[in-house]
């Protein structure tokens, strides 16, 4: 069963196919596609001036705490994913991104994500009443 038919089956059943915890997806490539690719693009090339390229990015490929902090706290236009993704999922995404498209940096483990996540409380993403 491919991804697309999985989605439409889920839709027919009225299931929450994409809600972070319930789906428990831990494949880095899939999670990257679902959460990151819309802005950073499918091959991590980004959109100049709007969304940073992930290929060769110094912060991403440096100390694992750096990218873990950005994903759990947000930065600039990037929202924080702290309420959408588990430590394991963020670990899987960062490990995937740091070793794809020519990037050659080591894995980021879930313990690092956990430590950084609780460093300072990230702003809440809680869906409130309508904005505009």
């Amino acid at each position: 069963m491919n991804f697309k038919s999985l989605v439409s089956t889920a839709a027919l059943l009225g299931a929450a196919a994409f809600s972070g915890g319930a789906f428990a997806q831990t494949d880095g490539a899939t999670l990257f596609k679902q959460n990151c690719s819309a802005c950073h693009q499918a091959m991590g090339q980004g959109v100049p001036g709007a969304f940073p390229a992930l290929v060769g990015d110094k912060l991403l490929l440096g100390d694992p705490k750096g990218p873990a902090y950005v994903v759990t706290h947000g930065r600039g236009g990037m929202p924080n994913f702290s309420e959408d993704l588990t430590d394991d999922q963020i670990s899987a995404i960062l490990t995937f991104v740091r070793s794809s498209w020519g990037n050659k940096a080591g894995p980021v483990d879930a313990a690092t994500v956990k430590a950084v996540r609780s460093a300072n409380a990230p702003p809440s993403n809680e869906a409130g009443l309508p904005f505009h």
Partner: protein
Amino acid sequence: MTMNDSQGAPFSRRDFLERLAGVGGTALLMTGMSALGFGIASAAVAPPVLQGGGKGKKVIVLGTGVAGMTSAYELSEAGYDVTVLEGRDRVGGRSWTARKGTKMHEIGGEEEVCDFEEGYYINPGPWRIPYFHRGYLHYAKKFGVAVELFNNDNDQSFINYEKGTGPLAGKPIRKVGIAADMRGYADEMLAKQVRQGALDAEFTPGDKELFLDYLRSEGYLTRDDFKYIGAEGREPTINPGAGLDPGEGKWSKPYPLTDILKSKTWQVLKSISALDQQRTMFEPIGGMIMLPLGFQKNLKPKIQLQHVVEKISQTPGSITVSYTDAATGQKGSVTADYCVCTIPLSVLRTIDVQCSPKFKEAIGGVSYALVGKMGIQMKTRFWEDTYHMYGGHVYVDDPMISTISVPSTGWLGQKGVVLGFYPHGAAAAKISAMSLAERKAYALAGGSKIFPEYAANAEGTFSICWHRVPFNMGGWAEWTEEGRAKYYPTLLEPEGRLYLAGEHLSYLTGWQEGGIESAWQQIAKLHKAAMAA
């Protein structure tokens, strides 16, 4: 001048304004100041008078959203020689309406063509006009753009919160029941404390009885013992009508307090809505594009479409905008005395703007909202026919859906276009990573939780994720406190002959009014400089 509060103690207008700002933030402060006749620029109600006229001086206006249109219209009316460049093949910017044949191609996405039937539409960007957005209403009136009421709060709407617990979690329930019960229970508990004398210290003589009267009235409490046993108007089990059954008076039973608390549905309740969500709200009949079209019809200069700006450069005596004509591929440029640039900062930062390092840094100093919307044409108006819900929003706690809204137009008609999702931030990032088919499937699954007939009624769709839309790269500017302090003031001042305007340069970010009032402010500055030159 002083005013008196209920204690009879005088307090100054300043005290009053500080109190206002304390409860309602800056926006309420502004309205208060406006009402008290301070006439501060941030709550302007009419375009600036450009005394003395433009005397044929040349101005380039970049962009034809409401900020660009306002600038172009007022400046050309005042006698400036205005050239208007628009990057797209249409006017309006985010002030726009998608209908049959409307095309969208997000960066990294698929080609999309709106397949609604003739006469049906969705406003993919701004969609509602609060009553105090006087600039928008000024131009709507001036250009004869007809408006209708936008129902922004419907007691008969549904709440479906899945993240709570207990028997009410994950079930669509009417807002009216939750509102009646939460307030009734809270009033009952407070009344009990007051009657027992627990709060006597809070009252001046005579006030305690009045306060109890208020609680009884507000919460529909029983006359003598202040119990909440249900409220008039709370989902009657039988609607009043003809015949022997009285109907009215047979109100449904309240939910147990514990069930409501655990369901978290009370999160949709506020004593009053935030200022910019209060009644009365409007929408233009025929869609948001009607106002830009109204401007266009009344604008003296012809708008140059598909002129994509590549560079803005200046000499001490002039400013030049270089562009590529997307229709022909030819490059060209316009030189003028001044330029009003309404291009979003998210896009301007990708353009070669020759300016000071400080100004350049400020252009990059704000983020833009990740935000998505989907319109779904429905073949029947089941929300009206079956659920008696006329306009308003369904509240859900799945952030990828966020809000489902039924239309405030086409009442009692055959079909209608429903807003299927309105996610923001990380949730919008996820929605935007989906294919168009996946987005539709997700929206239909979400709506089906509220209305079982949702998916079977769905016809055409149109979706948009603004952070991936060329010429926008985001829904609206989201300033941080730091950015407001460090960069915002820099961008409000002209950079030589360049004036920026748009919602991003206001405290009404994301609203049409922000664009209009920013344009008023900037063209007034431009005119002052032109008069002094």
